[in-house]
């Protein structure tokens, strides 16, 4: 059993709170991604599990035991660092065998394990080379090999793909997923790249300023973001936000933001009406913004805009519109060609509006 639990863990560096009362359980054999912007505390959380940092409060649990006072080498975890941290004066073989040597594993067994791991990662031909003679991708595989060889209960990966070029990154992502399936161990993967998180994680834990924002599978996090931060961090291009007020229009409750009017369904109206101040932030993802061919005003959620910039992606285009002070980004079909300065009316897919409390940032259901 190799689940990992952060039991109300807090970590401070002087006055800075790096991890704030984190409660998170990583299930046995799960691939969990810790996602967040630089400096949010995700690496610190990882290092707490590794034993490289001690929590100020709370417990770190691996399997069934609390490991707060257990040294890093006795926790049976393996870590892959962002810069790989390979020993530059040792060969690939010696790098991979290092952990086993430290544990006094007999030579023949060591040799076999290293060869097995090397074979799994395609490193057989490189065993005599030094890290300095390898490419970035090869070094990364050696770092992985060093971790695999010890058969740890938990794999910790600190942004291992950040130093690879784009194409290699995509390829390595797929290989890591396959590797995880093959090895069947718990993996905690830290990244700031939300695309990596969405494609790799069984679940994603989003962290911001040391606090857990939301944890769930990619679909859930994408379709039901728990607060403004998650909504703005996940998804590219980012979600559009409209600061709006509740108004009554033609007997129907609407959220009005500048020139945009968002008619509310019954449930939505009830939830929003319960808010003090009658203000809400409406969030709409770029793919849920549509071109309105018929320039009509109606009960639909509509918005008058001017075309600002058009970025062609080939199969689609990302268009930035301006409506007064607000900027709206939409993902539109590449078919219709738009010119800068063109005036249009946009329609918003009502089924995909998200509402957030402007004070707390929390989602309103």
């Amino acid at each position, binding site marked *: 059993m190799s689940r990992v639990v952060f039991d109300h863990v807090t970590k401070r560096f002087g006055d800075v709170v790096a991890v704030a009362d984190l409660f998170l359980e990583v299930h046995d054999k799960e691939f969990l991604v810790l996602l967040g912007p630089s400096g949010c505390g995700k690496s610190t959380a990882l290092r707490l599990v*590794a*034993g*490289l940092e001690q929590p100020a409060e709370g417990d770190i649990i691996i399997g069934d035991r609390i490991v707060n006072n257990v*040294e*890093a*080498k006795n926790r049976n*975890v*393996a*870590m892959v*660092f962002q*810069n790989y*941290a*390979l*020993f*530059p*004066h040792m060969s690939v073989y010696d790098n991979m065998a*290092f*952990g086993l040597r*430290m*544990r006094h594993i007999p030579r023949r067994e060591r040799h076999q394990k290293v060869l097995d791991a090397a074979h799994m990662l395609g490193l057989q031909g490189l065993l005599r080379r030094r890290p*300095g003679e390898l490419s970035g991708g090869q070094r990364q595989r050696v770092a992985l090999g*060093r971790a695999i060889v*010890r058969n740890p209960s938990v794999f910790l990966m600190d942004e291992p793909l950040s130093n690879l070029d784009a194409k290699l990154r995509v390829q390595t992502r797929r290989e890591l997923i396959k590797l995880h399936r093959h090895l069947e161990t718990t993996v905690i993967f830290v990244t700031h790249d939300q695309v990596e998180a969405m494609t790799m994680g069984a679940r994603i834990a989003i962290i911001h300023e040391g606090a857990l924002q939301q944890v769930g599978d990619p679909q859930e996090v994408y379709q039901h973001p728990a607060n403004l931060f998650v909504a703005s961090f996940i998804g590219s291009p980012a979600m559009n936000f409209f600061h709006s007020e509740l108004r009554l229009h033609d007997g129907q409750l609407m959220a009005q933001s500048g020139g945009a009017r968002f008619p509310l369904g019954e449930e939505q109206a009830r939830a929003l009406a319960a808010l003090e101040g009658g203000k809400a932030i409406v969030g709409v993802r770029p793919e849920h913004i549509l071109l309105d061919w018929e320039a009509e005003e109606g009960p639909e959620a509509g918005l008058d805009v001017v075309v600002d910039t058009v970025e062609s992606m080939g199969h689609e285009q990302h268009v930035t519109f301006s409506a007064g002070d607000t900027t709206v980004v939409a993902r539109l079909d590449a078919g219709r060609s738009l010119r800068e300065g063109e005036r249009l009316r946009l329609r918003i897919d009502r089924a995909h509006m998200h509402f957030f409390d402007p004070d707390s940032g929390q989602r309103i259901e």
Partner: protein
Amino acid sequence: MDATDATANQRLPLIAVARRQLQRLRGVNRLGFALIFLIPSLVIFGAFVFYPLLKAVYLGFYETDNFGNQGDFVGLDQYRTVLTSESFRHSLWITFLFALYTVPPGILLGLALALLANQKLPGISIFRLMFSSTVATSVAVASLMWLTLLNPNVGLLTYFLVEAGLPRLDLLNDPDWALPAVSATTVWMSLGLAFIVILAGLQTIPDELYESARVEGASGWRLFWHVTLPMLSPTLFFVSVVGTIFAFQSFGQIHILTRGGPLDATEVIVYSIWEDAFGKGTPAYGVASVQAVALFVLVLGLTVFQIRFLERRVFYQ
């Protein structure tokens, strides 16, 4: 050159024009061009390094009369006489002992202090300041300090010995202890620089390597052996080579503390050279020059030896 060339030249910046003209020069001409820039260095090195070296070799071939004038040409005889003399063999032995007493302890002590001062503890910068402070003392000042420290009547050493109920020691006048005492002074003097260089080397070792080793199961001594030492090897090699060269060139502290005595117990080669050339009433430039040339060959040989045998174990990144 046609009209297009001319107009192109007008538009190009000066550096491009210079480069073009340089490329038009043939090999030898380029060398001449380069020499013009090298002349200042060549003049200085020539006057203060190459000429004295060649002159010393030359002087070794000539006897010197009692007034210091150049005497008869004796060829290699003087070389043979001096280099096989009892006195020279003694100096050679003392010099080797001196190097042995100063270089390894200097490196080990510098390493130990640097390891201690490399920790992230509050107030550690005070210790770093203290340990590196000897780099600011001159040979003369340091020697005078130790002369006083070791003085049997007023020195600090005597104070501690008396407090402990032990007899006084006059180390600098004891033929058995003079060399170790002078060596201690030398180690103290050179500690500052060794400490700074080794500490700098330690700080270039990435933390991630230590962390990675810790997660892999290493701790304490094994971290030092598998991470610190290999990554520090270029620095230690440097300190060893340079330290050896400096040890063989030591003069100041010997002159102030013991003047080569007592009973020639601290008569290193450099001191013997000085004595023969300037210290005695009758200057013996020929004899001194022979020893100087011998010292040069010795240090060169030791350096080559270190490069050939020690550098193999050094790991460069």
